[in-house]
């Protein structure tokens, strides 16, 4: 399986409130609230770390989950976020500064 890289999109506003990550798409004002696992993924989305590494080092290390199952869930989660334009998914490393936007 090829590596997947994820980066936070630029046209979003994000803030952690009481441990929950609130994210608003600056493009269409859609609001998302991420749970603890979602917040870990969001914070790890630096464009350099692969999804597999995030799942292994951040998710499986902190939460009691099956690695294979977790990777499948995380892939579906990031694809969902990507469909709303708040995260960027790529099979090569992403330079967040090159994403442009607001």
């Amino acid at each position, binding site marked *: 399986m090829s590596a997947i890289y994820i980066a936070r999109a630029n046209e979003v506003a994000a803030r952690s*409130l009481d441990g*929950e990550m*609130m994210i608003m798409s600056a493009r269409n*004002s859609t609001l998302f609230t991420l749970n603890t696992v979602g917040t870990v993924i969001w914070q790890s989305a630096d464009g350099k770390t692969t999804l597999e590494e995030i799942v292994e080092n951040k998710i499986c290390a902190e939460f009691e989950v099956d690695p294979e199952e977790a990777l499948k869930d995380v892939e579906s989660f990031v694809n969902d976020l990507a469909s709303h334009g708040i995260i960027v998914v790529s099979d090569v490393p992403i330079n967040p500064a090159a994403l442009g*936007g*607001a």
Partner: protein
Amino acid sequence: MGRLATAAGQEVIIEIGCMPVQVRSESSEFLQMIAERYSGFLNPNARPVFELNVDLVAPGRITEEEDLSVRFESGRWLIERGDLRAEWEPASRRGRIMQSPNPYSIDAALRIIHSLILAHEGGLLVHAASAVRNGKAFLFAGVSGAGKTTISRLAPPDVTLLTDEISYLQRNGHGYVAHGTPFAGELARVGENVQAPLAALYLLQKGPENAIEPVSASEAARMLLENVLFFAHDPKLVSLVFESACELVSNVPVYRLTFFPDERIWEWIA
């Protein structure tokens, strides 16, 4: 009554949220109507922070825009709705409104311009009733039908109503000041032109009995954002409003207020 005649033309100065706006028109009848509508908010001696020229045209459709459109182009905000076309340039602090001689179009333009200015200062316009009691302001936010008009109507005599519809929140250090507004809702009564520090935000809903419960910050931000007057789909503005809402719920206590619609609810607000 505001001053209506000057050497340079005719004007009234409407001061909402400590922000005096000079409204000019060549029609003294129109200015008279505006002066009466905003009578509690006129301040003829204030130095205006921005100026609006109103060009009156015959009643009828002015723009092709069915819904409200607010966008930023070439350094100006362009505001269009079927009954009005307005532009406002933040740098020069001047604007223009084209509308027919009615009080509603300029009221809409003022709400929008105030919301744009507030957004850059960490403040918000919120669909909420607000009131002052014992020197403290309380905000009651909710969608249509949640009870903003009802709770306003039930307010006892020691409560000063700031608005039953559109609350004006200005950032003040780590806190907020709620100002009265002339933007009336179903009570069709403008608020009092007073201000007080915001003590609490209540998310309103009607229910079989009165109850107050704390709300998590994320839930409070989500609910507040649903009630923020937000006209422009501009990425920078979206970020500002989002930040302001998050700041507010981090600094002001937020509760869900379920109330049975009678005057006893005000025993809970102090």
